């Protein structure tokens, strides 16, 4: 690296750390949070639209919405499947465009009068981004160390001695999720009901996906409780197939540098 900053997880020398073991490396991006907010939803109309939050980011962000009242992630993206994307009709759901998060179209009134935690990520879901790959092996486990780095926005006198990781925006006692690849894929009869992504990380990675409108004007919510695809991963590629039926749809995905087979 000619110029920049690298900070590794505790107990691992920066020269021995994998890409996924860097809490900060200015050569790639991280899954940053633009906004976390609790929202009390009022009465949702049966049709039309209902704005949940105006983010005004100027791009379509990844987001998730956890319904605190109902104890489940919300990822409605109501659609009717046909064998081709041309017949894939989007009826409505909870979506984000480049200005706001909102309910649209065929709306589910069961969400009326509930409390949700909305998390909007500072990542453009319609971007095509690939990070450089620097170190993906061999592997070392993070060890407890007295040395490290911490950054916090809290101004209390003892803020740096706070044991709670969520109070820090960066802390070498925590692993941060770095982005390897962000992109969009389409799947229907013309692709063999499959979507293939090259990751080249040397080991299967963790990932998240969300439905999107094929013209990239809006995206559905991430739902880490259940992604409706099966990922068949090798050391270099990931193929997405349907989990319960043929995979038909347009998707935005994020692949992380973090491996699915290792916890280090």
């Amino acid at each position: 690296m000619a110029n920049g900053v690298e900070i590794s997880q505790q107990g691992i020398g920066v020269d021995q750390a994998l890409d996924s073991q860097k809490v900060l490396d200015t050569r790639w991006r991280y899954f940053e949070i633009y906004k976390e907010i609790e929202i009390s939803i009022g009465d949702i109309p049966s049709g039309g639209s209902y704005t949940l939050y105006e983010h005004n980011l100027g791009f379509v962000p990844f987001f998730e919405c956890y319904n605190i009242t109902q104890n489940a992630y919300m990822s409605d993206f109501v659609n009717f499947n046909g064998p081709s994307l041309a017949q894939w009709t989007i009826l409505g759901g909870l979506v984000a465009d480049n200005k706001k998060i909102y309910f649209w179209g065929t709306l589910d009134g069961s969400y009326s009068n509930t409390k949700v935690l909305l998390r909007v990520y500072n990542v453009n879901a319609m971007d095509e981004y690939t990070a450089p790959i620097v170190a993906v092996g061999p592997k070392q486990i993070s060890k407890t160390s007295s040395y490290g780095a911490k950054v916090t926005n809290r101004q209390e006198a003892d803020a740096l001695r706070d044991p709670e990781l969520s109070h820090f925006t960066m802390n070498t006692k925590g692993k941060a999720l770095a982005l390897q690849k962000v992109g969009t894929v389409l799947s229907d009869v013309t692709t063999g009901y499959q979507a293939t992504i090259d990751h080249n990380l040397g080991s299967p990675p963790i990932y998240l996906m969300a439905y999107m409108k094929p013209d990239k004007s809006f995206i559905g919510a991430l739902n880490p409780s259940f992604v409706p695809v099966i990922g068949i991963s090798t050391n270099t590629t990931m193929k997405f197939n349907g989990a319960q039926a043929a995979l038909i749809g347009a998707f935005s995905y994020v692949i992380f540098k973090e491996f699915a087979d290792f916890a280090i």
Partner: protein
Amino acid sequence: MKYGIVTTKENETADNGRFAFDSSIPRLQVAVDKDPKHLDRIRVLGNNQDANAGNGYYIEETLFSAKHGLPYIPKVLVYFNNIFNNIYNVGRYYYTFGAADDYLTYRVDADSFKIVHITTGYGLFPLTSSAQSAGLIQIKYMILSNPVAAITDTASHA
């Protein structure tokens, strides 16, 4: 005055606001020094289960449980891997699905993180879980230091 640290992108200056790192922006992160672990890879075996009228067509077994020790209900990322066919599923692993489902998923509440095996006919249909539900599944989980709800929201999430 705003306090913090910024690192610019390559060939950029701090004046244009395009940063590679801005300490005011939080991120998803998982502690690497917790006991029980917040970042781990485990392997679980289920049991054959019989969801029938006697149990309301629903049966659930806990395959793994760990206290998270966090002052909130945390966000969790779980990846199920059938190591024999390189299949990776996020959040749930289905053995069988249809009118009745047999699958693995997770639960997290104010106290613990759990991996559970659910066999359900949704109150209507019987289902005996398949032989493969007793097979080995590898699970990578990350109990993030990011909340989904305050600790006072005590109902369980799955």
